[in-house]
């Protein structure tokens, strides 16, 4: 690692756009378009309209205004010293995408694609969702722009993320629980593609991550790169240097690509993607596509994926609905193969430990997806601390973590994991400190009253 790379002499004028993908959407051997011919015309139309839109000053002005006035950008960075005590002495900064309107990074992409939908004259949007954050963001943008909206969500996920189902319905979207296959994100994507091929004339598919056929991986990256563009400038301004490592959780990979892209040319900055390790990659019950998978074709692109010897997609497992996906965006596969980014698994327990830690040390409840990135920061920070070679001289190493979303939607899952909110005693899962005294005057879980009864008591 060279000091010059970490302390750049002059600030770049405009952030460079990566040289990939090529004109047909290939990132090295990854990406491309593996879809039925019936969708090619729609993908060509989208590509062409997007290429025109992304350099159109009128679009850029409208998009910037929405990001500022509606989403609340730029999102701040927050240093978290009490959390960092558990990260081997590193300094930890969070990029606060949880503070965006709708509560995650997903809104960045959706506003761009919703404007594109209007530009190509379509009146209906469809989307897949896992954790429900992309569904909520799409339903939000549809309400804002007067588009009709249908969201496909695996039945299993509608249960895990019931709060977000209610939010989408409040926003006027139709939510269709998907009951095929593993009843999670993968199957929701299949159903959304089937809807699209049938209704393509008036419908645009607002894809939620940097996967899928060209142009989605490049387009969604372009809409999400604002995260890293902002964060790079913010860290430079605050610390006068670049971070040593940038960390993000990887489901399909959009928040990770979003924060990585600005740093890709900065050779001295490590890029670390944290995949969902579920019960552990060795158990086979996980969602770590790069760490535990092989290259193949799924959902319209070549990338790493979890598959068996017959080329069947293997069901993934993760406590986090948003990471519970057996594939990953092709650009991550490429960054992995060229050695520019590293990918590591984080187990459910490690993620939940980091989740609880951030809640209690910093007063921030993260999404469980995001907690995987926080666990990664604890891991990398400790490694650097133990080696003593992370920082610059006396300075400790600096870790920038993408706090991709807030945890409201996960309160129930976390309560169950930690044994809260249940009259029966449940053993707390890893990560919760059992000795902590309750806050004075707080309602303990056994006294909590549900819904209507709460109103009657008041």
């Amino acid at each position, binding site marked *: 690692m060279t000091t010059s790379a970490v302390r750049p002499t002059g600030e770049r004028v405009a952030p460079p756009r990566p040289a990939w993908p090529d004109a047909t959407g290939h990132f090295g051997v990854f990406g491309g*378009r593996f*879809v039925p*011919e019936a*969708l090619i*015309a*729609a993908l060509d139309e989208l590509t062409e309209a997007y290429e025109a839109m992304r350099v159109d000053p009128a679009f850029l002005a409208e998009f910037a205004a929405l990001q500022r006035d509606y989403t609340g950008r730029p999102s701040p960075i927050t240093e978290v010293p009490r959390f960092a005590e558990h990260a081997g002495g590193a300094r930890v900064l969070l990029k606060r995408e949880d503070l965006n309107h709708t509560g995650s990074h997903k809104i960045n992409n959706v506003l761009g694609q919703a404007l594109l939908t209007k530009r190509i004259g379509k009146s209906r949007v469809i989307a897949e969702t896992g954790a429900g954050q992309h569904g909520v963001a799409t339903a939000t943008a549809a309400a804002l722009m007067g588009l009709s909206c249908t969201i496909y969500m695996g039945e299993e996920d509608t249960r895990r993320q019931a709060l977000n189902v209610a939010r989408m319905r409040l926003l006027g979207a139709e939510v269709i629980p998907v009951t*095929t296959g593993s009843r999670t994100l993968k199957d929701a994507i299949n159903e959304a593609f089937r809807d699209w091929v049938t209704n393509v004339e008036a419908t645009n598919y607002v894809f939620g991550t940097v996967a899928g056929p060209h142009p989605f991986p490049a387009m969604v990256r372009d809409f999400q790169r604002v995260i890293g563009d902002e964060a790079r400038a913010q860290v430079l301004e605050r610390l006068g240097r670049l971070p040593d490592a940038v960390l993000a959780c990887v489901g399909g990979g959009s928040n990770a690509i979003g924060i990585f892209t600005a740093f890709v040319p900065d050779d001295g900055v490590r890029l670390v993607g944290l995949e969902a390790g579920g019960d552990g990659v060795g158990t086979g019950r996980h969602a770590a596509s790069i760490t535990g998978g092989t290259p193949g074709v799924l959902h319209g692109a070549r990338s790493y994926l979890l598959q068996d*010897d017959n080329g069947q997609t293997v069901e993934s497992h993760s406590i986090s609905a948003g990471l519970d996906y057996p594939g990953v965006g092709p650009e991550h596969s490429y960054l992995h193969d060229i050695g520019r980014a590293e990918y590591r698994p984080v187990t459910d327990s490690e993620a939940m430990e980091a989740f609880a830690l951030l809640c209690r040390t910093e007063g921030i409840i993260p999404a469980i997806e995001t907690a995987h990135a926080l666990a990664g920061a604890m891991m990398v920070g400790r490694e650097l601390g133990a080696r003593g070679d992370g920082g610059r001289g006396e300075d400790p190493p600096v870790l920038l973590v993408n706090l991709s979303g807030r945890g409201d939607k996960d309160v129930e899952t976390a309560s169950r994991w930690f044994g809260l909110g249940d009259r029966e005693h449940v053993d707390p899962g890893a990560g919760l400190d059992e000795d902590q005294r309750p806050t004075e005057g707080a309602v303990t879980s056994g006294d909590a009253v549900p819904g209507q009864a709460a109103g009657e008591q008041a």
Partner: protein
Amino acid sequence: MSLLADRIATARGEGRAALIAYLPVGYPDVDTSIDAMVAAVGGGADAVEIGVPYSDPGIDGPVIQQAVDVAVRAGVGMRDVLRAVEAVAAAGAVPVVMSYWNPIERYGVERFAADLAAAGGAGAITPDLIPDEAAPWLSASDEHDLDRVFLVAPSSTDARLASTTAASRGFVYAASTMGVTGTRATVSDAAAKLVARTRAAAPDLAVCVGLGVSDAAQAAEVAGFADGVIVGTAYVRQLLDGHGRAGVRALSAQLAEGVRGSVPA
């Protein structure tokens, strides 16, 4: 030489369209599915589109999904598919494999082509592989003299009709409607229009129509403008509803009259 083109030409010589029956390997189990394919041939199918089970069948509707899901869970793979190819060839029809791309890529493109040719298969229909992404398959199919059937759709531009038909051999698969597999009450007008546009792009290539053709009347209608009629969901329905081999054979017999232009009462 193309096994599929030859068989379609023979049918044309008899003044009719060819009948192509789709059935997936492994529903309800491998042996029964192969028996059903042979029964489809016995009833009059000229070719059998032998479905490779896949976990994420993007252009299939609920009926085919339901059957294929059983086969995927049972671990049915390319070895079983090759057995079906041999059985269909032995029964006297042309076997053509229909597979989403990942199972072929996973098996190995070159190995797939070699094994398919050795088993007597004509080639493969690849619904999620466009010629633009097909370089390894184009060369492997050339080397082993296999047919390769790509799809065209009502949304295809003239330029894509030209490039897709140029890459196809055996026939080109015209997806009659924008949508997924399943039975439909009527054949859409889009089908005839698409066939006409495809013929204009490639006068020497056979055009077969699939997606939504399910009974003899529809087969007769399609036979009026296309070289072949592809029926899938209606065959799978026979098995799902428990009519077994006899049901499949009877359906083939009706459809075989349909492709001759006559509709049984």
